[in-house]
């Protein structure tokens, strides 16, 4: 069921949450209970003054009734349903009703999405630990050494324990071997314990350092006023924020904050705020020209501005030359995948093939909201120039809602292939879990 046809269901849920009877709400809204009943069962469309009245009585924003759950939540639920082995035929049918579920039961849906995220994080921990057992050369060598020693002890002790005579010189030899091997085993065990202890935060190391950093950035709203004002340096803030993080994540966070600090020094809040006010909208290329700055740096600053300075919220994605997302600040209706690559049609990736070329496209996000966004992208050199070495590029894509919605031919995009409902997409790299797209031959 489409999201915009579920307004009635949301009104019903909100009424029940508010503890109102249908007749009471109908009376306050000045309509008959039977008409409200039809509305609540999505048999009558609703809008205009009546919608505003009902929203006011229920003490919610009208959009909470018309739009329901955020696209991010819906995307998270789709991700949860897409996990291999969990989406049986029954789940496949119910994916059709994900919007309804998220709209009617936002609390439960949020809980399910959070649980899924936690499950994914734990699975990644298990994978990483398994990977560690397989590929960590120190661990593999220590375990091999232990097993070889145990094998020698077991074989020798079994020979000694067998009934029957064993020549005295062999007996002495096996006793000596067992003694030597047991000492070796003890030493190997101690070494192994020391090695494992040294990885004091092994479990958090295993849960994707980038995720730890993402969580800290999201928590801070991607803004660090203490750095903006110069009250704290990047290093000190990284130490404070990263106190409970794994070593790798702490280093990643410090690197991010050092860049943030450099950006803030080059384009202080007042400077970019004034330039923004002068032009009106968050156009990174115009601002870069006006400020004589690098457009990528301007994009990072726009993504870090307080909401009251911006006409619209700005989302930002950054990827390295391999296409791996190294930074993500999603918008409510423009989610960005937590794992794996985004939609291959995003201008972010096109920018990599045309370095230093400003790209601007209007995108239409997949899904029933069909929201439009203006995406500005550019790939800029990353790291120092080295003689006779190809330059490394890093791409940035700033995303802002396209309120005008006047672009005649917006580019249809998605979030990532697995949860993308679009059919006939040349960029598809794996089948979708969504019914229509899943039926498409891949």
């Amino acid at each position, binding site marked *: 069921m489409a999201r915009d046809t579920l307004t009635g269901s949301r009104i019903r849920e909100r009424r029940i949450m508010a503890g109102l009877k249908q007749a009471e709400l109908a009376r306050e809204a000045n309509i008959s209970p039977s008409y409200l009943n039809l509305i609540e069962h999505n048999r009558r469309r609703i809008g205009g003054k009546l919608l505003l009245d009902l929203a006011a009585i229920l003490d919610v924003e009208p959009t909470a009734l018309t739009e329901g759950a955020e696209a991010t939540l819906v995307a998270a639920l789709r991700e949860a349903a897409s996990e291999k082995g969990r989406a049986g035929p029954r789940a496949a049918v119910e994916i059709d009703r994900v919007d309804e579920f998220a709209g009617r039961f936002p609390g439960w849906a949020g809980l399910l999405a959070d649980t899924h995220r936690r499950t994914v994080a734990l699975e990644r921990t298990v994978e990483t630990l398994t990977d560690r057992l397989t590929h960590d050369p120190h661990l593999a060598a220590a*375990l*091999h050494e232990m*097993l*070889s020693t*145990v*094998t*020698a002890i*077991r*074989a*020798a002790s*079994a*020979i000694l324990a*067998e009934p029957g005579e064993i020549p005295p010189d*062999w007996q002495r*030899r*096996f006793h000596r*071997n067992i003694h*030597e*091997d047991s000492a070796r085993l003890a030493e190997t065990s101690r070494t192994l314990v020391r090695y494992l202890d040294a990885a004091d935060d092994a479990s958090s190391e295993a849960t994707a350092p980038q995720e730890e950093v993402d969580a800290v950035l999201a928590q801070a709203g991607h803004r660090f006023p203490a750095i903006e004002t110069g009250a704290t340096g990047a290093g000190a803030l990284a130490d404070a924020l990263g106190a409970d993080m794994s070593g790798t994540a702490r280093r990643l966070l410090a690197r991010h904050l050092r860049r943030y600090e450099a950006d803030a020094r080059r384009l202080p809040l007042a400077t970019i705020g004034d330039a923004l006010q002068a032009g009106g909208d968050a156009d990174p290329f115009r601002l870069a020209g006006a400020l004589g700055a690098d457009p990528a740096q301007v994009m990072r600053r726009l993504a870090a501005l307080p909401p009251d300075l911006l006409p619209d919220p700005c989302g930002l994605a950054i990827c390295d030359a391999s296409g791996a997302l190294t930074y993500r600040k999603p918008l409510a209706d423009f989610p960005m995948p937590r794992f794996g690559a985004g939609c291959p049609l995003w201008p972010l990736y096109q920018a990599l093939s045309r370095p230093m070329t400003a790209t601007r496209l209007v995108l239409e996000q997949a899904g029933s909201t069909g929201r439009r966004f203006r995406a500005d992208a550019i790939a800029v050199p990353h790291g120092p120039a080295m003689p006779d070495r190809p330059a490394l590029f890093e791409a940035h894509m700033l995303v802002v809602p396209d309120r005008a919605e006047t672009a005649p031919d917006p580019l249809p995009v998605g979030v990532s292939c697995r949860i993308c409902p679009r059919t006939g997409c040349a960029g598809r790299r794996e089948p979708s879990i969504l019914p229509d797209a899943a039926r498409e031959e891949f």
Partner: protein
Amino acid sequence: MGKELLLIEDEPNIIEAVSFLLSRDGWTVRTHSNGADAVEKVLKLRPDVVILDVMLPGRSGYDILRDLRARSETANLPVMILTARGQNRDRELAERTGVTAFMTKPFANGEMLEAVRALAPVT
């Protein structure tokens, strides 16, 4: 004269225990501890059975086995892989490489004897 077995293993105390066990069972046991020239050793000694450790200095047991299977004179030689890694994928790798038997460390002595006896060519 008993059948000849070549044990290619770098752990001295395992060599000693396995040599004792198999010698007592009637095998003439020769040993070798280096992977780099293990194939030459097999070609020179022409044993009836080979027990081959996987993690050897110089060359991996799987490489040695692959080399042996590629030579007509050792293509059908019974070879038992001895490894600390007993996961399915290790077994599959051994099977793909042409192993005759697969044994994981640590093993029971009786288990080792049974497996080697089963490899002995019928005369």
